[in-house]
């Protein structure tokens, strides 16, 4: 069977459900990730309201544990991860001068798996209670937790984890194979570099999670004993497996943000990135060291002074490449002409905030002092400084920067600045006092605290800060809604961009580049502009462009696993079999139907070029 000629434009909803276009998948990731970000944010607000005064009873103890688990799990796996994939999809193929990712079908499958994993997890709210064992799911708390909340956690993460893994592999292949002529590795923009390293980390970090989740599932569903000390199991196995995944995970999150910051800082300082090769080397080194430090999450688990010392020193070592990055950003700005656009404001806010998170990270690396810090609010403050102050501020910088490219609209700058200031001040107000709460003896993950322990004032301040962050987020959503009006169409090359994604007109043509561009150095578009060219020099003549067909199969494959997961939770073999049958049928169809895609003909492309559409 061949479907070479079957190119029919699908419309509306069907288009979104079947798309394999990296640009649209990027938008799907952004919208879904944004949705989960709101859900996770609401959970955080409930927790801060509960904690604004001692012995409050806004939510019950049990509900609080569900909130803290869902907040962490949602924010890490279903907000931060998809938002990163959103930008990777929207930007990386354009930055390397490619027409799509290497495996467009797999790309769509990755999205739908992630999406149904997130729906699965959140369905637990309506089906008898959410997971309550923390996002870390430590055994035996997770293995003995009553109800099916933790089962939703296991299967939701399992499904979405598969999506993340294939997404990571896809980007590795894309970046290795699909760079335009002249784009050597050492000419790749930093966002592409960080996406590359992050994809590599995903490849090595997610399989341990998969295994751990299988063990957890077997323990809960089939009474296995991996973590049950009464029957020869060992609880530390889960802690190790989880953090062997979990620590690289934080670098998976932060590296693309570093990349976005590098692009924004360089563009709005009108300078090439200072110390580009040092930046690349630092990125790779951080990725590598990220796998050698997981025990710093387990200093108090009792592995002994030798293990603790080794992992302490390894952890401290990561501070060096991270510092290199900070100074290179500062010196990119040094001597530049800084334009304080909203995107740049986020980047400028990011630097000191992330540094503060970084230095508390070094403090936490000291085992003996960590015995005091560990599992206290000091740690809560630290990881919110690196994850919100690092990852989220970086993502916001990227959002304002790449929004025109993704949506063919710019965001309003004034609202953007209001968003920045409320969120930024709110953030520091929320989390700075938490350092002191921890030092003053407040453990984390507590649903309440007794009065008379000198913890009241700082908790109140923290809650006020959280409200301010919520206000900032609402402003962002107003801004997004307003941007849909025609008034906000971007001008050509709105930021005086340096990299290839700015070398094409708005909206981005379906095939990205009418002619694959020739890359003559780092910041190729900037080089051409400096040489007096308006456009990139093409590396090939105009010709037919081969495009992949859309497919509904990724959606149904994911629905199949989603259904099968319910079978596993409710122990219904029938439902499980039906679900898996759907998935396997889709895989079978995918294997036997030869889909050669379709061509956009030379004439069409030439017409687009004449009218300035490509």
């Amino acid at each position, binding site marked *: 069977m061949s479907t070479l000629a079957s190119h029919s434009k699908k419309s509306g909803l069907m288009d979104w459900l079947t798309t394999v276009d990296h640009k649209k998948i990027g938008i799907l990731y952004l919208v879904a990730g944004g949705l989960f970000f709101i859900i996770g944010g609401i959970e955080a607000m409930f927790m801060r309201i509960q904690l604004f005064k001692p012995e409050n009873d806004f939510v019950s*103890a*049990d509900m609080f544990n569900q909130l803290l688990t869902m907040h962490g799990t949602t924010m890490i796996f279903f907000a931060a991860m998809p938002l990163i994939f959103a930008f990777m999809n929207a930007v990386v193929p354009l930055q390397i001068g490619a027409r799509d990712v290497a495996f467009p079908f797999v790309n769509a499958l990755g999205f739908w798996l992630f999406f149904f994993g997130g729906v699965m997890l959140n369905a637990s709210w309506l089906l008898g209670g959410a997971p309550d064992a923390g996002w870390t799911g*430590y055994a*035996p*708390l997770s293995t*003995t937790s009553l109800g099916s909340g933790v089962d939703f956690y296991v299967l939701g993460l399992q499904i979405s984890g598969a999506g993340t893994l294939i997404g990571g592999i896809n980007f590795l292949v894309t970046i290795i194979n699909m760079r335009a002529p002249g784009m050597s590795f050492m000419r790749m923009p930093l966002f592409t570099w960080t996406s590359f390293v992050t994809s590599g980390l995903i490849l090595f970090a997610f399989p341990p999670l998969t295994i751990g989740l299988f063990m957890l599932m077997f323990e809960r569903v089939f009474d296995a004993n991996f973590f049950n000390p009464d029957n020869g199991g060992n*609880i*530390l196995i889960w802690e190790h497996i989880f953090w062997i995944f979990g620590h690289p995970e934080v670098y998976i999150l932060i590296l693309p943000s570093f990349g976005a910051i590098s692009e924004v800082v360089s563009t709005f300082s009108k*300078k*090439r990135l*200072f*110390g*580009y090769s*040092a930046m690349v080397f630092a990125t790779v080194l951080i990725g590598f060291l990220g796998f050698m430090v997981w025990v710093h999450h387990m200093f*108090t*688990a*009792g592995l002994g*002074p030798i293990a*603790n*010392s080794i992992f*302490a*020193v390894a952890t*401290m070592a990561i*501070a060096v490449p991270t510092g*290199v990055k900070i*100074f290179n950003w*500062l*010196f990119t*700005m*040094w*001597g530049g*002409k800084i334009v*304080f656009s909203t995107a740049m404001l986020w980047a400028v806010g990011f*630097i*000191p905030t992330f*540094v503060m998170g970084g*230095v*508390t990270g*070094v*403090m936490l690396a*000291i085992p*003996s*002092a960590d*015995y*005091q810090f*560990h*599992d206290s609010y000091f740690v809560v403050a630290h990881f919110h400084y690196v994850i919100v102050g690092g990852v989220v501020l970086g993502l916001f910088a990227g959002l304002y920067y790449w929004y025109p490219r993704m949506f063919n609209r710019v965001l309003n700058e004034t609202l953007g600045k209001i968003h920045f200031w409320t969120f930024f001040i709110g953030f520091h107000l929320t989390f700075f006092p938490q350092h*002191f709460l921890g*030092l*003053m*003896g407040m*453990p*984390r*993950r507590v649903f*309440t*605290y*007794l009065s*008379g322990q*000198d*913890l009241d004032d700082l908790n109140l301040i923290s809650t006020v800060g959280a409200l301010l962050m919520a206000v900032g987020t609402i402003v962002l959503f107003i801004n997004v809604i307003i941007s849909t009006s025609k008034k906000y169409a971007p001008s050509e090359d709105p930021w005086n961009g340096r990299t290839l994604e700015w070398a094409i007109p708005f909206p981005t043509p379906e095939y990205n580049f009418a002619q694959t561009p020739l890359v003559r150095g780092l910041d190729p578009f900037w080089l051409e502009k400096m040489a007096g060219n308006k456009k990139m020099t093409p590396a090939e003549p105009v010709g037919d462009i081969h495009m992949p067909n859309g497919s509904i199969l990724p959606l149904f494959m994911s629905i199949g696993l989603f259904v099968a997961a319910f079978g596993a939770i409710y122990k219904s073999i029938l439902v499980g079999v039906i679900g898996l049958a759907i998935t396997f049928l889709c895989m079978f169809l995918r294997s036997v139907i030869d889909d050669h895609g379709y061509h956009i003909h030379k004439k069409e492309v030439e017409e687009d070029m004449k009218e300035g559409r490509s």
Partner: protein
Amino acid sequence: MFAMLALLLMGCGDPTLSTLLPQGEVAKSQYSLMVLSLAIMIFVLLVVFIIYAIVLVRFRQKKGDDSIPEQVEGSHTLEILWTAIPIVLLIILAVPTVIHTFNVSAKEKAGKNELSIKVTGHQYWWQFEYPKDEIATAQELVLPVNTKVHVELTSADLIHSFWVPSLAGKTDTNPGDHNKNYMWLDTGSKTGVYKGKCAELCGASHALMDFKVKVVSKEDYEAWKTNFKSATAKSADQAQGQEVFKKNCLSCHAIGKEGGSTGPNLTGFGDKEKIAGILDHNKDNLKKWIRDPQKIKPGNNMPKLNLQDDDIEAVADYLLKMKLENK
């Protein structure tokens, strides 16, 4: 600068709970590392913030200036500088880090401790055993001043973490014999009551798994031990309470040598600081606890017993009169 930092941090928090007001050798050594690392980190922050401020002030684009700045590639000297200096700073930090890590480790000090105790975490209460004296108590750990204490940590159910911020950082209590943990702490030179916490999420009432460490003079400690050992469940003037207790509570709670161990040992309950680790120690609260423990600590292992009001009254009186007395 060190002294200033230390001063700044002092005065922060509840003196029986804050890590910033340490007592005894272990907490003090941990505090000293916190101050050292903070000082180095503040130096780093200062350097970054100063460059940052200069950049933001000096290099903003002026109105009407459309010139293109020089496209600098980088600088080897600078790269080497900001790689080497952090490495030196980290070495300055890493050396004491490793030394202290070994120092506070229980293995190194195993032979040198004057007292050994065993801590067991339960959902949501703490059991303290003195193996040499065959004493088992709960919720309040009584220790003599100026003593190095070797602590063995286990759990009866899932992972908890034993934390007395004023005296020592936390160590997890892992379930299972092959994951037993050990630590040591030094009680310091002052008597006092310090707050203890569970630091590992362990279920609904994790936040309420508080306990106390009572550091007393050596004489008081000896007296407490003798009295504890000779205490019994008998009470001449509280016959009804004793009867109620025997019928409803003894299966879980021990007084003296009699009774079960599902719940905390209640010997000397009348002298305690708190009820169930969190409530103020008075009769109203005690009655509230006995009437419905689930309402106070959701998910804990003491069931609601549906006792008559006068039985609750009697058993509360009986427990409050259970004081350790010098005989």
